[in-house]
């Protein structure tokens, strides 16, 4: 069953059509990817799904409800969470506090309760801290709860961002280039981690990714965007042999990886095969 359906979604900026007539279906408990050259409209599509942009045309249906006119906070409360391409943590808040903010939709206490320090509020706060600590452990950040987010190393920041997204208990998680800027070891760790999210927590995952090794090894289905249009969709094997995809990548002389990946030298192969 499809958890997210995009139906002829179009987003324009002035004269530029960033996403054009996009159709997409994401199956529940699947891991899917969107790939495409820079400026293909991938992040714009994410922004449409999360309500940051309102598409001019088309509809986005999440669990059977249209969400294209809702505000980002409403959409998050429905069960969609995301991370950002250029990590956007609350830099001057601690690791714990970042996760506590992520827990926001699951808390109910009001400010009056906080001022009066009611039993309910205190219980909820204790529960929230406990939950946040669990999440810290889940992403391997235990013991770093009091560090300001901006002082964490890069890899930790990536994982904290995911933990913050997980805190709202999303049903669908959008990851925008989760392995950007990581070395091969960190990358394979991240790939394994993403799998765990699906296998252990049952979260549907949709990611934007540039590293073809990651995309091909992790995705069940892949959609390819170019100039805002979907030019191909299918399993990794189908995408690798699709002539239009190869043209989109090679024709613009950008990343040649799409064609190359299968024959990737052995140096990083073991890490990937061990995951599979």
């Amino acid at each position, binding site marked *: 069953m499809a958890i997210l359906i995009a139906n002829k979604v179009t987003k324009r*900026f*002035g004269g530029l059509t960033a996403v054009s007539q996009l159709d997409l279906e994401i199956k529940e408990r699947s891991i899917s990817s969107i790939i495409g050259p820079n400026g293909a409209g991938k992040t714009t599509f994410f922004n449409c799904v999360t309500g940051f*942009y309102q598409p001019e045309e088309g509809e986005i249906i999440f669990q059977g*409800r249209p969400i294209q006119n809702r505000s980002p906070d409403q959409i998050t409360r429905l069960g969609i969470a995301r991370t950002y391409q250029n990590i956007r943590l609350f830099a001057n808040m601690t690791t714990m506090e970042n996760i506590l903010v992520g827990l926001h939709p699951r808390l109910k206490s009001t400010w009056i309760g906080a001022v009066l320090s009611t039993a309910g509020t205190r219980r909820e706060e204790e529960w929230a801290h406990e939950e946040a600590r669990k999440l810290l452990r889940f992403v391997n950040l235990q013991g770093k709860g009091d560090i300001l987010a901006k002082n964490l190393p890069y890899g930790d920041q990536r994982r904290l961002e995911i933990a913050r997204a997980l805190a709202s208990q999303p049903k669908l998680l959008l990851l925008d280039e989760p392995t950007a800027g990581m070395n091969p070891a960190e990358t394979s760790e991240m790939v394994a981690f993403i799998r765990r999210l699906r296998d252990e927590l049952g979260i549907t995952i949709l990611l934007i990714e540039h590293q073809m090794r990651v995309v091909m090894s992790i995705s069940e289905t892949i959609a390819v965007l170019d100039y805002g249009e979907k030019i191909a969709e299918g399993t990794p094997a189908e995408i690798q042999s699709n002539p239009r995809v190869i043209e989109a990548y090679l024709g613009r002389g950008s990343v040649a990886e799409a064609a190359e990946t299968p024959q990737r030298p052995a140096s990083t192969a073991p890490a990937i095969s061990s995951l599979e």
Partner: protein
Amino acid sequence: MRQRFENIDYLGVILWLFRAVIIVAVIWGTIATILNNPYSTENWIDFLVFGLAQGSLYALIALGYTLVYGILFMINFAHGEFFMSGVFTATVFVAIPLNQAGYLNRYPILSLLGITLVAMVVSMGIAILTERVAYRPLRRAPRLVPLITAIGASFFWQYFFRGLYGSGVTAFPTVDILKGKWSIGGIEILKAQGVVIVASVLLLIGLYIFVMRTKTGKAMRAVAEDKDIAALMGIDVDRVIVITFATGAALAGAAGVLYALLFRQVHFFMGFIPGIKAFTAAVLGGIGSVPGAALGGLFLGMFESVGPSLFLEGLGIPAAYQLKDVIAFTMLVLVLIFRPQGILGERLAEKKA
């Protein structure tokens, strides 16, 4: 059904109501005034000409805000003080001594040019100093930080010049050739107002040519477009920023002298309210746009001058002229809510995306 209900944007509705109330009030007031018509045609023309003169001053000051905002995305709160510092200094050190020596009325044009030159140079000096000390170290800081420093700089300069030249109102000497009126096609215009309008238009045209035609102007526009790429192209970004501040301040300095001719007095607080008004004008015209600032200034000046009599009195408000600042600030709020890009500006939100 429930779904549709959830999707109503309450905020949008409230803002829409807010706008509707103000539009109705303005129309109501205007109609009431026209039906009563307490003023003669000459009165209305006087209001308009005064508004034009005041508005061209706003336009000159607004350019400083627009130029700096275009490049640094920063509201230079201290700009009103650049305006004040030049003319205050020129009045104390040049205009008054010249007047005492009798030169001011013997060689009025030469004297006025000298006064203007001194005012412009002092304003530029203050601007360059402020940029160097208070703004440059914070160029990469979060947005609010330079704004707070700018507020600090504004108050610092106000009270600095208050300490320097005293806290009272200093009279700007009268220039005999600017006394009286000109009659143009049956319309009588105070000479001082005429001079202000003409000089402002000339300065505005001069600035437009400077920004659009000269090499420095091109460099300014390049830096406004993208600082990093401009630097890669061999443009000295720091220098361009200083020039931008200096240009804006020079115009503000000249505007200061015109202000003194119009109102015949200077004091340490004179820059503050005109500064905020000029910022309003810049926003009104579309911040970052040079013609926009000019247009916004003129529009605001006229609106402020005609508005109280036109629609506030119609609403039965006594001493409506007291509320002209309220009109200006209300307009600022309305523009920022409903058309943040201003009359001529481009949409900043889209630039971001």
